[in-house]
């Protein structure tokens, strides 16, 4: 069995296991390459008929191309798309200019997510995070519990061995499910290439620059690159000497911002 097929099969097993164990689940779609890969794997797992909603947490600061792509695919793949926004904070003018990145991410992303989970009584959510994205994400489990305050108790995680995932959930808790943990950045692009997955055009080079990681347009910087096609990108990642998230402002603010955010319930 080749490498990508092995990764894919493991992800599909995890996705199906999560659905069986929790039933009331949803998938978080950021419209980036990882969550779009996750979405594709969900389609495979359920033979094209995903039995749960796909959620986009919209900070309202996303790139236009992302909104276009989102709406197009939702229609084409017949998705049950739900958009979550922290309307109250946006009305107050919350944005990256106001206060710290920690605050902005926390309010517009984490708290918007909390509201969606409460509103739809979700027991678990699927996310496309990977171990190699960030040292903190490398500490994650495939099935990772969150308490009623959305706190991640990283000092006391359940054991996870032999594909046995903890699934007992208390009244107010929910689980984060991470079916892509074992994919690397390179694997994702290789998979995108193999499956011919549609991808937001921002990832491709325009005027000598491209986005290696996308989020809100206010806090993402492009990197120098001439990679115009998937093949170019795959080759570029293979030989890269910098990390994927080096263009993300969040991690620059403070070394432990990501850890703090995640402890409060961030992705």
């Amino acid at each position, binding site marked *: 069995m080749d490498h990508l097929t092995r990764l894919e099969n493991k992800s599909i097993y995890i996705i199906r296991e999560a659905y069986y164990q929790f039933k009331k689940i949803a998938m978080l779609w950021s419209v980036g390459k990882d969550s779009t890969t996750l979405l594709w794997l969900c389609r495979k797992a359920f033979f*094209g008929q995903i039995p749960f909603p796909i959620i986009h947490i919209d900070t309202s600061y996303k790139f236009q191309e992302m909104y276009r792509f989102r709406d197009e695919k939702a229609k084409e793949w017949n998705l049950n798309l739900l958009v979550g926004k922290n309307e109250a904070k946006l009305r107050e003018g919350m944005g990256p200019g106001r206060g710290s990145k920690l605050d902005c991410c926390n309010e517009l992303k984490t708290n918007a997510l909390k509201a969606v989970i409460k509103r739809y009584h979700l027991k678990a959510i699927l996310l496309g995070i990977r171990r190699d994205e960030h040292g903190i994400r490398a500490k994650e489990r495939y099935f990772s519990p969150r308490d009623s305050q959305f706190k991640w108790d990283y000092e006391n995680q359940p054991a996870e061995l*032999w594909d046995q995932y903890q699934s007992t959930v208390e009244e107010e808790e929910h689980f984060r499910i991470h079916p892509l943990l074992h994919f690397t950045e390179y694997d994702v692009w290789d998979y995108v290439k193999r499956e011919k997955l549609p991808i937001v055009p921002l990832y491709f080079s325009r005027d000598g620059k491209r986005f290696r990681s996308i989020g809100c347009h206010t806090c993402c910087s492009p990197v120098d690159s001439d990679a115009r096609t998937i093949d170019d990108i795959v080759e570029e990642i293979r030989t890269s000497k910098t990390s994927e998230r080096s263009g993300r402002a969040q991690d620059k603010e403070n070394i432990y911002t990501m850890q703090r955010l995640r402890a409060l319930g961030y992705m």
Partner: protein
Amino acid sequence: MSEGERALPIVIVGHVDHGKSTLIGRLLFETGSLPADKYSEIQRSSAMLGKRVEFAFVMDCLEEERSRGITIDTTQTFFRTSKRRYVIIDAPGHKEFLKNMITGTSQAEAALLIIDSFEGIQDQTKRHAYLLGMLGLKQISVLLNKIDLVDYSERKFLELKAEIKDFLERLNVHPTSIVPISAIQGDNVAKPSGKTPWFDGPTVLQALDTFHPLEMEEKPFRFPIQDRYTVDGEKILVGRIESGHLIRGQTLFLLPGKNKVVVKSIEEFLNPNVMAAGCEESIGISLEGKHRTRRGQVLAGDRSSTVSDRIRANIFWMEQGVHHNGETLLFRCVTQEIPCRIEKIYKKFDPASMTLTEDDALSIQNGEVADVLIRLDRKAVVDPFNDIPEMGRFVLEKEGRPVAGGIIL
């Protein structure tokens, strides 16, 4: 080197502070696998804590891990040599975090056991070595670290080497190499050290290159049913092939029970007309005719499975607190979830002391290993671990949390 080949997962285990995280950081650095921005990040946070560049920070990313100087949870990272790619799994060395060490180790196919040459073999060294054996890891290289602290002494190296070989032999574990290193100085990690001219064995990188990925042998077909979906009116059983392979039209046994069934189709999204499927594939199966099927049943290619409500096994306890025989647990083996209890503990011991602590014990706790009889509320379909490991290993849960792992004898 093919990027399409999978990375070989290797776990690094050993007693607390014997140098696991430092070694990994150094390996990444030496192989050019540490991105420049990551290196500056660890430079910064090391300086903040008043340390010189702390390679352990590559893996220890939690603030608590860095400020306390310990690894709390397992982490994985990737690096490559000229031969291939590796996934390196770091495991905590504290007894308190045994379950995190087990979580990490269960994903590996080879291991590096690291021992502080100055301190020598400690409790977790023995416990980890024992668990490596229990978890089925056969490819192990032993690294005698901090050789700089014992003045690069050949005598000290040979002494420790003999001791660890003897210990491992008693566990039926045969290391492929025993290497004197200094992770902090870099001796024998990527390049042979000028300070150990008496040593003619491999460097750590060379030792890693001698490991090979586990081959899949042909075994009897086992497909534990994970769930059932109805897709366009068709009933599809989904799950993963844990061993063997399947051909459309094949006759299978639906266990537990006496029913025989025939495979009508093998279902994969956007892949019509699948004729066969192999080990590790997550697929859908539809059967001819009507059958009462549910999650937890196993579709088997032959009748060699053990179908029983009494299981003899070796278990290792990995949670805090004491468990008494007779208390309710949940047995989880592939997709089976069956309430159970430990009926009898034949023998129990703590690998750290390597002495039998008790015959006919009445309880078990963190760090202990035992030979037990488990009584299940209903029959399970399993295989001995040495025959089909996927069907012969299980987790025990108590009040929703995994508390022990075990292998079926």
